[in-house]
């Protein structure tokens, strides 16, 4: 989780740089071969991809490894989750490198009027910084098995005085198991990369794939699914909440109190009818009422 943010940001910025390079084009099928136009972005993007795939010694490796480890040690369903996690790792490696190969290798497929160019230093410097962080970000979290001592935890040691107990528990898992897990994770990630390389190394044309590839081509329709299942409903739910709960509900209550006061003011002022006779009557009536209450409660 901790290091994830580095390479996510790196990839995010990297794609920003790429998009910048090709003047706003976002479709990777219209890119390709950008390697020769933008070296810095290429390298940093590569680092990001490797990191996210979880290859040793990049930061993604350790974080992923630790997550898997935690998952493994967690309860009865640990194994199931582990397998799912491995699958996910495979897919991550696969799709990231697909993106990578398609974008940076092969021939440039954009129009001839477009001339890809490296982004200005202002954009590349953060990229480089983040790439380095992705590299070493993992090292500071190297598990003790490799002689590291979790520099990140020490870095946060004032924070974590009391949490050492839970740490110790995690490391009760045998080092052998940890090694095996690491190996498996790396192998899986490499498999993903190789798959991507195999399919997209020389991605050339814009031909329409069919069948299963088409399904893959469209990212398993995951974007659409994601969009349809999570983003859209969440947004419309939020819109609904804003309208109903925020504006009419909470704010309605707050403003309603104000309006209630205005309204009761409007009614109460009618007591002040301007007629002396009424005033005198109210004085006497109020007096008698107060007397009754006071005397009643004093049991006189």
């Amino acid at each position, binding site marked *: 989780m901790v290091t994830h943010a580095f390479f996510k940001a790196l990839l995010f910025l990297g794609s920003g740089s790429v*998009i910048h390079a090709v003047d706003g084009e976002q479709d990777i099928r219209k890119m390709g071969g950008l390697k020769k136009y933008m070296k810095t972005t290429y390298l940093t993007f590569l680092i990001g991809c490797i990191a996210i795939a979880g290859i040793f010694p990049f930061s993604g490796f350790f974080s992923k490894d630790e997550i898997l480890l935690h998952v493994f040690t967690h309860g009865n369903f640990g194994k199931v989750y582990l397998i799912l996690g491995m699958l996910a790792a495979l897919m991550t490696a696969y799709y990231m490198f697909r993106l990578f190969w398609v974008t940076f290798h092969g021939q440039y497929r954009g129009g001839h009027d477009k001339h890809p160019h490296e982004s200005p230093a202002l954009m590349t410097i953060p990229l480089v910084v983040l790439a380095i962080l992705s590299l070493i970000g993992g090292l500071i979290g190297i598990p003790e098995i490799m002689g590291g001592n979790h520099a990140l935890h020490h870095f946060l040691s004032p924070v974590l*005085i009391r949490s050492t107990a839970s740490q110790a528990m995690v490391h009760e898992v045998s080092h052998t198991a940890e090694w095996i897990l690491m190996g498996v994770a790396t192998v899986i990630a490499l498999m993903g990369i190789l798959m991507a390389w195999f399919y997209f190394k020389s991605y050339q044309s814009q031909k329409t794939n069919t069948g299963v590839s088409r399904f893959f081509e469209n990212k398993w329709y995951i974007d659409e699914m994601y969009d349809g299942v999570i983003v859209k409903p969440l947004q419309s739910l939020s819109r609904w909440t804003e309208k109903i709960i925020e504006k009419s509900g909470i704010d309605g209550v707050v403003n309603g109190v104000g309006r209630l006061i205005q309204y009761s003011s409007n009614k109460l002022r009618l007591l002040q009818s301007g007629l002396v006779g009424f005033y005198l009557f109210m004085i006497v009536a109020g007096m008698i009422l107060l007397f009754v209450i006071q005397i009643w409660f004093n049991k006189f």
Partner: protein
Amino acid sequence: MLILLLILFPLLGGILIWLLSDKLASIAALFVSIVVMVLSLVVYNQYHHGLHEELIYQQPWISQLGATFSIEISNGLPLLMVMLTGFVFPLIIGAWYNKPIEKASRFYGLMFMAQAGLMGVFLAKDALLFYVFWEVALIPVYFLSSMYGGARRIPVTFKFFVYTFLGSLLMLVAFLYIYQQTPIHSFSWDSLVSTGKSISPANQQWLFWMLFIAFAIKMPVFPFHTWQPDAYEQSATPVTIVLSAIMVKMGLFAVVRWLLPVLPDGVKYWMDVVMWLSVAGIVYASCMAMVQTNIKRLIAYSSIAHIGLMAACLFAPNADYLSVQGAAVQMFNHGINIAGMSIIVGILEHRLGTQQLDEMGGIAKIAPYFTVGLVLISLANIALPLTNGFIGEFMMFNGLFNADSKYRVWLTVLAGLGVILSAVYTLTMVQKVAYGPLKTTSMGFTDLELNEKIVVILILLVILILGFYPKYLLELVNI
């Protein structure tokens, strides 16, 4: 004596600036704010070297009541808040140095009066004094946001004012009640704390709400928050920064200082309710933030979400106060980050004349410096590691997860959901503003000017230094 200057200097400076001409006002304001910042650093130095006698000032005030004018920096939290107050003002004034402000002398005069009030709130060790400063900080801000800002500013600010005024009156009643129970009739913090413990739990329970509502309105915590997006949207951005970076911290600070130690039984009884409210607020405000089209409202909701996490952590009890420490760190960092964010947004608003996200886009192409600032501050805002936001957030989650509450897992999960959503809407906002095709409405945008560059670089420096090396910050909150 030194500590008294923290209040007196901005107060007198504010009055003097009010009397100056508008031309001189901004340079004088810059000077005063920098002096206050230096003062706060000097105070930090004193504290760091353990010279505590300089950090206490006492003077008899209203002997009939047992109220003293007593201000003190007794631990790291008030110091952090003083430093935050000291830092943010020069940033605001620096960033607005090149922008015309109508009647600048009045504007800055009121700003410094607000600063004096804020300093007083963070320093007061006497409940009555605290209350007085609490209101005194509010009045100049009320005038500022009513005089400068959007078209609906007057009713919106008034709603804010009445809301907080009501809350603070309830707080006053609670203080009065506790005060009447004190054996020596004193308002001092110590006597309130020692007396508060002995109040019967049944009474503590209602007293808790009297105090909590006052603080919750200020923070604002979930159902008491509706003043805030409107107020942020409609106020002029410098005022929004004062509101969002410092004033909301008043509520959190007050919880730590005047609620948790004073009414332990009440807190114990209601903490689950408060934590649920706060955490619900996180998710709720994050969802709200996702659908905002107005960039200032978006930031307002994101601030509610962040504050919700801090509020939840303040009430999450655990043996080592980890979550409270985390919240204390985050109070400072959130102040810096939201100030940076608002300054960026203020620049956007000033250049483009709009707050609508739809009308922004592709600014990265024409304003690279601006974009770097925007992106990095946004990353700090979503608590990316190695930015300052991360440290506090990490501690808070750790503390929340280890909280002594049976709902701790659920609370942590929901709060974590809030963090993910925060990344979603913040990055979407960045993308809409900076990337994509350049919109015609954003055509006239010019990159940062010198003073803005300096301010943004300073903020980035703070973000990165505290992110890489948070030792000094963490030292302060080691309660």
